[in-house]
């Protein structure tokens, strides 16, 4: 428990250092007059055209969804694989055969999903 308290301090440590650096930059940094041209978003020297909140490709969302599926899969596999050696040697009190069959079914569903996505052409980046 104490270790998680230290970890929670570390969770904010990086953010705190970055915040401190930003404040130092705001205080120490030298300032010039904020003219229109200076504040305009950089566009290779051309005058800024339109808004940057543009529509973008839906493909990014699909990859995010796929990522979700496979990352959750990794999380589900984690507890099984962490104890895999014990299970196989029979020390965990589980039938090794049953666990292997479960894993094979789990993996088969995933591979089928990947194959489906591949065949649909979603993995092709245009």
């Amino acid at each position: 428990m104490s270790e998680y308290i230290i970890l929670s301090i570390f969770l904010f440590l990086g953010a705190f250092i970055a915040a401190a650096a930003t404040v130092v930059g705001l205080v120490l940094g030298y300032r010039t007059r904020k003219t229109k041209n200076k504040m305009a978003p950089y566009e290779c020297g051309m005058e800024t055209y339109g808004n940057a909140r543009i529509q973008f490709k839906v493909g990014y969302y699909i990859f995010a969804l796929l990522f979700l599926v496979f990352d959750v899969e990794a999380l589900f596999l984690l507890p099984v694989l962490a104890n895999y050696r014990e299970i196989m040697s029979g020390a965990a009190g589980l039938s090794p055969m049953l666990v292997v069959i479960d894993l094979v079914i789990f993996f088969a569903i995933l591979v089928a999903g990947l194959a489906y996505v591949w065949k649909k052409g979603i993995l092709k980046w245009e």
Partner: protein
Amino acid sequence: MYVPSVTNPIGDYVREWVPQLVAYLPESLQGETTCSVIAFAINAIICIIAVCLVNIGSAPILIYMERKVCAHVQCRLGPMRLGWHGTIQTIADVLKMLFKEVYSPQGADKKLFYLAPLIVLIAPFMIAALIPFGHNLLVANVDMGIPLIIAVNGFGVLGILLGGWSSNNKYSLMGSLRSGAQMISYEISFALVLLFVVMVSGSTNLMEITNGQAGTVANWMIFKVPVLGFLAFIMFFIASTAEMNRAPFDIAEAEQELTGGYHTEYTGTPFAMFYLAEYIALVTNSALAVTCFLGGFHAPCIGFESVDQILLKVPGVIWFFAKVYFMIWCYMMVRWTFVRPRVDQLMSFEWKFMLPVNMLLLVGGAAYIALSI
């Protein structure tokens, strides 16, 4: 009431001398609770200072090293003017960066604009807290080591997406979206390779993973499982390079196409924070590779009694950092010798090559363990 106590290995020293110090306090404050809380606080402060030193201190060294490696790969000399062989050049650069103007462009979402560099720095510090640097040098010895690392790694993507979106610049938006897609794709490979390590070592605790590789070089994860271990190491190397947005996978920055990517609009110290995060991530990823594959802080013993005795005399921290800097040198050589792939090549490489190979790797590892029992 819950009283925090010191549990990690550095704490042993703290636990010994805090009661002696507490004896000087007024009578009313003495007691076991005070002792415990003070010991915890002192331990936390020591940990924070140590991690900050390792992380922030290594960034200037790495930037100097990168410039030198790059220069020598390209038959140049690199920084030479300031100090001996340009050694204090990076410090001068940092000082210059401090005095640059900090502002957000017109139409930017100010809150998110200044929040993004904060979020980017979270992950490297968290990971540094989980990695064992030596037999007694570890901030938090938790059982959830590997899952925490996989979880925290996602913060980097969030920061980059926020930074790109909030700066109201089309190039930034494109760069951040690309790097978001790239980083989340390679995170799967990253997680699956770590799963392989977890499966072989049978633990998610990084200290136990390291101690499982004690002994000779043949016990290191990279050689422990023949062929598969080395394959996993290569996969980890590729996935972490893409995770860090380093060349040859620096699609996000792609200065020739996107004028710098997600940090185009950043100036001064917030920009420096993005840079710092990149280099700290280099250290933490190398440290993770060393912990998981190259035996962590264990000396590279080769099995001959006479040689091993000399090697074992060197402290573990020195071995650890020697290995880490070797890994960093590898990352740098890869960066300056390979060409950048296109976006579509990068994505299809991950989804159509890395992911199937990763799954085969897991299946192969499972079969190897099942057969070797």
